[in-house]
């Protein structure tokens, strides 16, 4: 029978990546010199599992690489090798290499053999150079080779006297003798001399011994293999018999030493299939090779993107579906002979249906939710690496790691977060000397925090560094023409400037915080997720970046608005208020743009029908409503015909079904089957700002 073991590869990759994450976390937590045994053990175990699995599943290059790493860890675990920082760093590099190898293998790509070899050699060098005695590498079953009689003898005379506890190891002497019989023809005789009298017999103890004559072309190796499981649980004498002596069985080995009453020695043959044909020797190990090569063929698809879901979440779903089925059958029954006096029941049933559907929806969403620790977990490593690179001392604090958010959101927020953290480490937190000079503790603190607020998840990245330098930011912004020469801005406004496109203050481009792929990209990425990012900063006290994100990208709370014959959806989170337009508050400015005076602020009015070029019911502002929204840090008023209801809508991507449309973030299907488009508020605000600018320019030219 041959089993296609490639079917287990997906699981193997998944658990290996988890194992690597664990290794990384534990390695980062290690204190060289006083390494915690439990941590080393955990790291060892993870490496060990990857090695075992990769060997089994035919990924030999991974197995070879991990073997060296494992040997190193094994020595540390046994206390034969000291845990020193260079070793920890090298092991961290090994984790990276393994991750790259496994990723490449999973995606059927080429492994970067140069890099693998490089780190592999470093590990080997460390192993050789290090303290430990490299006893592990001794090949188990060499040694016997110089035993000249090894090869061709007529057979073997084997004296096998199990110790009394043999049964308690789960071994069965009969099985062993049977196995010998598969090697060649055997003649076995039992030595009953150690048998006590029947009433003294303890059935749990083995008191028999055997003398076996094995003939045929069998090597001593093969014989020893048969006894390998019991070699410490028996007295074993293996002697070669020359062709001449083969006929003469030797007397039973060792005389009973302290046998209470010597039982009559009788010739007995306890093994039924004693006479088996002297066929080809069939060592057990020989079955190896075949299927390993079969498994070496390429894994099928790349990343299938699976998630692990807690059993309780699945149980909740099943429970919910059960309820739904009951409601459905109740409604079915009602429908079979429906009369008007049962309308009440129908309504009840429908509202129950609605409740169950909503609960089901919430629970299904729950499945995609993962704790943000998945994303936070990469930071200890990042901070560790950057600290040594930048010669800074930084302590990383994390809280709210169990806050859950959608898997897709989590994957997409990773890079912007890394960018912000790198920035804080590079530009925010000062060098130990500078900190001491400022009277701050030498070690800076970077704090990552996450919590839920409303339908959002809030992620804070806080450092106690130098804070944003408002003077320099303003100066730079003026240089770049982002801000006018004489504009006076509040500190908050100046801080916001760092998110402006093309703005980067780093005087020295370092490979840490990148080459001015600045905060504008971070901001755009976050905006694409329907989120916002803000910064609060105080000189010498530090900065806090706050990212606010919707919990999921799949569902949105929307306000339905009517515009002509069309229904649009405005995300509820971006709506500040809605109001009836008063004519006296509308101001027209050059180029035909309009502003609405709301309290002391002037908001640009976005006439949606103009943006989308559709026919509204009316074009008179006073006959419609203004929905005040905030997007991209800017407020604006969207002019619509009417407000309809609010509801949760399932977002369908426009891009996958059609193409990206400026000002729209997606579409949804309403209860009556019509399609409603979802407004991208931030995009709209930008769009209208550009329009106003264009109009202004036109006006200026004219």
């Amino acid at each position, binding site marked *: *029978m041959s*089993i296609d073991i490639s079917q287990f590869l997906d699981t193997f990759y998944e658990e290996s990546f988890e194992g690597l994450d664990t290794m990384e976390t534990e390695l980062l937590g290690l204190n060289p010199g006083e390494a915690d045994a439990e941590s080393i053990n955990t790291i060892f175990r993870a490496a060990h599992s990857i090695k075992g699995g990769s060997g089994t599943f035919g990924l030999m290059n991974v197995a070879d690489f991990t073997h060296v790493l494992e040997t190193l860890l094994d020595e540390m675990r046994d206390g034969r090798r000291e845990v020193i920082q260079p070793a920890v760093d090298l092991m961290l590099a090994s984790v990276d290499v393994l991750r790259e190898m496994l990723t490449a293998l999973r995606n059927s790509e080429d492994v970067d053999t140069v890099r693998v070899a490089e780190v592999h050699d470093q590990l080997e060098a460390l192993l050789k150079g290090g303290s430990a005695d490299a006893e592990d590498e001794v090949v188990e079953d060499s040694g016997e080779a110089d035993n000249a009689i090894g090869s061709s003898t007529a057979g073997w005379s084997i004296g096998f006297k199990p110790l009394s506890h043999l049964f308690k190891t789960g071994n069965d002497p009969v099985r062993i003798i049977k196995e010998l019989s598969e090697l060649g023809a055997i003649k076995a005789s039992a030595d009953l001399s150690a048998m006590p009298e029947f009433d003294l017999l303890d059935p749990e103890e083995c008191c028999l011994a055997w003398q076996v004559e094995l003939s045929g072309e069998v090597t001593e190796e093969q014989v020893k293999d048969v006894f390998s499981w019991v070699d410490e649980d028996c007295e074993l004498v293996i002697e070669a018999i020359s062709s001449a002596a083969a006929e003469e069985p030797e007397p039973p080995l060792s005389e009973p030493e302290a046998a209470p009453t010597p039982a009559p020695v009788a010739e007995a043959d306890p093994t039924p299939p004693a006479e088996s044909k002297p066929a080809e020797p069939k060592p057990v190990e020989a079955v190896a090779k075949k299927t390993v090569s079969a498994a070496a063929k390429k894994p099928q698809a790349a990343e299938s993107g699976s998630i692990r879901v807690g059993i309780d979440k699945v149980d909740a779903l099943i429970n919910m579906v059960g309820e739904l089925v009951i409601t459905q059958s109740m409604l079915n029954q009602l429908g079979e002979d429906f009369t008007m006096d049962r309308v009440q029941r129908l309504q009840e049933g429908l509202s129950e249906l609605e409740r169950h559907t909503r609960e089901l929806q919430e629970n299904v969403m729950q499945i995609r939710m993962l704790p943000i620790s998945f994303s936070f977990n990469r930071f200890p490593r990042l901070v560790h690496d950057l600290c040594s690179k930048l010669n800074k001392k930084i302590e990383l604090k994390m809280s709210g790691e169990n806050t859950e958010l959608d898997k897709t959101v989590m994957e997409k927020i990773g890079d912007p977060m890394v960018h912000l953290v790198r920035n804080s480490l590079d530009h925010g937190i000062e060098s130990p000397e500078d900190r001491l000079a400022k009277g701050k503790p030498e070690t800076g603190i970077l704090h990552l925090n996450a919590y839920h607020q409303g339908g959002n998840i809030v992620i804070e990245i806080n450092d106690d560094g130098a804070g944003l330098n408002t003077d320099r930011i303003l100066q730079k912004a003026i240089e770049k023409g982002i801000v006018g020469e004489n504009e006076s801005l509040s500190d908050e406004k100046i801080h916001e400037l760092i998110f402006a496109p093309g703005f980067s203050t780093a005087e020295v481009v370092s490979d840490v915080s990148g080459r001015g792929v600045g905060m504008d990209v971070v901001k755009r990425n976050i905006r694409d997720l329907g989120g916002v990012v803000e910064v609060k900063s105080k000189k010498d006290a530090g900065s806090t970046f706050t990212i606010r994100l919707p919990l999921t990208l799949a569902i949105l709370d929307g306000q339905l608005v009517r515009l002509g014959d069309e229904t649009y959806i405005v995300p509820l989170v971006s709506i500040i208020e809605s109001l009836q337009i008063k004519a006296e508050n509308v101001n027209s400015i050059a180029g035909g743009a309009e502003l609405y005076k709301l309290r002391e602020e002037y908001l640009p009015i976005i006439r949606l029908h103009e943006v989308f070029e559709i026919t509204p019911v009316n074009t008179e502002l006073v006959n419609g409503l203004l929905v005040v929204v905030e997007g991209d840090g800017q407020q604006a008023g969207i002019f619509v015909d009417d407000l309809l209801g609010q509801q949760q809508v399932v977002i369908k991507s426009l891009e996958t079904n059609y193409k990206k449309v400026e000002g729209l973030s997606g579409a949804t299907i309403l209860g009556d089957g019509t399609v409603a488009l979802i407004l991208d508020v931030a995009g709209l605000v930008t769009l209208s700002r550009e329009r106003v600018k264009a109009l202004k320019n036109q006006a200026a030219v004219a």
Partner: protein
Amino acid sequence: MPTILAVDDSASMRQMVTFTLKGAGFTVIDAVDGVDALAKAKTAKVDLVLTDVNMPRMDGISLIKELRALPNFKFTPILMLTTESGTGKKTEGKSAGATGWIVKPFNPDQLLATIKKVLG
């Protein structure tokens, strides 16, 4: 058909072992570590135990000791799944009461051959 208790903290190994053994007609109970295995061993009739050595919570060696202390497992064959580098582990396992071992990496055919040999 005999029942086999298969213990491994690695999900892929567990899947592979379970799939192989079930395919050969064995009944398989699987467990994720020593603690899990011990709990399951107390409530089931098991003909053979197959256990990984390195596992969190309770490793294979401790599991073997615990199992041997149970009356039902006094003579039950217990095989360790071990890697070649773990020579020391074999001895340790043996003195804990293991019957024998299967060396990793192994393939399904080797696994079945060894188990059939032990169960006769």
